[in-house]
Every structure is written in C-alpha cells, then in structure tokens.
C-alpha cells in the first residue's frame, strides 16, 4: 500500500496487519529532511506531487517488490507540502517471515520511489534563492538508468 499525506508521518501508525503473526520482522526506512545540501544550509523545503500518478506508480513499485522478493506486506507513505528540518519525508515498512527479503524489498521500494514517483522537492536555503532539486544523473539518463542511488541520503538527490 502506497500513501501520500500532508500530515506529519511520525503521527501516523504503521498499519497493524504488517505485524501479523506470519511475519517475523519489519524493516523500516525513514527519510528525513536534512539541514544541508551541496554546501548550502537548508532552512526548510517543499514537496510537490502529481498525486494521481504518484499514487499509481507507488502502488506499482510495491507490487513489484512483493512479487520479486516474496514479502507479505509493504507500506510506504510520502509526505508533501512544507516540511521543516528533521521531519520525516518518507517511511517505508516491509514485513516478511524472514529478515533477508524484508531488507531487499525495503531497499528496492525506496530506490524505485526516488527514480520513478513524480514528486519534486524545492529547497529553501538560509542564504540564497530557493531551488528545485534534481537528480542530475536521472535527468541525463532517464528512468531506465542503473546508477547507484546509494548517495541519495548524503548528496543532492534525497
């Protein structure tokens, strides 16, 4: 299940069915709003989304992960609108009978969301004008690229 919200994610419960007795573990990823990016101090940011398509792409990604890794349940929720430093921008929870497939599924879902779900981020800086953030490699190579997004939490690409 993929969801979009304008409310603080840490006030939203993870759906109870992810903790069903068949599942032995949940892998949880939370992406936070960072206070710096490429040498600039970030004050806050805005996420904008193409809601209908973000919803359908998000669900597609989750279904792919379920069939690819055999996990039982995946829940991902992305916030949009205005966010302050330290707030949760995205949460992905993957639950499975065993941890290995839950880790793989969680990683797959966050990576694919970053590549494919139509959500945009505008950063407001302490010094300087606000800017739309782009993953330059995605822009250059298209959605089918296979570059490593492992930098995503530390670079311009969050």
């Amino acid at each position, binding site marked *: 299940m993929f969801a979009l919200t304008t409310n603080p994610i840490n006030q939203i419960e993870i759906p109870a069915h992810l903790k069903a007795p068949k599942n032995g573990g949940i892998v949880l990823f939370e*992406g936070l709003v960072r206070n710096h990016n490429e040498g600039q101090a970030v004050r806050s940011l805005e*996420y*904008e*989304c*193409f809601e*209908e*398509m*973000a919803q*359908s792409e998000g669900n597609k990604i989750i279904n792919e992960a379920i069939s690819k890794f055999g996990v039982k349940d995946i829940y991902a929720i*992305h916030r949009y609108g205005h966010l302050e430093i330290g707030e949760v*921008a*995205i949460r992905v929870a993957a639950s499975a009978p065993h941890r290995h497939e839950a880790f793989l599924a969680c990683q797959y879902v*966050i990576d694919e*969301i*970053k*590549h*494919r*779900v*139509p*959500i*945009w*981020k*505008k950063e407001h800086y302490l010094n300087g004008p606000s800017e*739309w*953030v*782009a*993953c*330059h490699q*995605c*822009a*250059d190579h*298209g*959605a089918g690229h296979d570059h490593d997004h492992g930098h*995503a939490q530390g670079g311009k*690409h*969050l």
Partner: protein
Amino acid sequence: MKVKVRYFAALREKVGAGEEMVETDAKNAIELFHQLNKRHSFPLDSSHLKVSINRHYQDWDYGIKADDEIVFLPPVAGG
C-alpha cells in the same frame, strides 16, 4: 484537437498555471512539447524531462489524441 497539459514544479512556476487546455495538431508528445516550448520557453529541454500520457510514462514519439492528459515531468526528487 484539444488536449489537457498539466505542469508541475519548475514548469508550473514558469508557465504560471498548473494546467491548460491546448488546441494542437501535434501527432506525438515531442511535437506538442516543441509547440508549447515556443509559447512558454520552458526552463528544461526535452532531454531533461520525461513525459506521461494519461498517467503512464511514455516515449516522446508516443502518439497523442483528443482529450489526452499530458505532463512533461521534470527530474523527480522524492524520497
């Protein structure tokens, strides 16, 4: 024919609107993009955008028809 074009992020700000109905004779998405680019001078060229038609990613040469919803998508940055 008329199609609906929606704008997000940097394109929305440049156009000054989230959507518009467009009268066009464009056969595909790239022709429509070039026509609209003349009017709006988009801040990104087609090599930096993707296109969705009726909420599915499509290639730039994908044919368009009346009442389609077309979006030129700037590089995404969710997560």
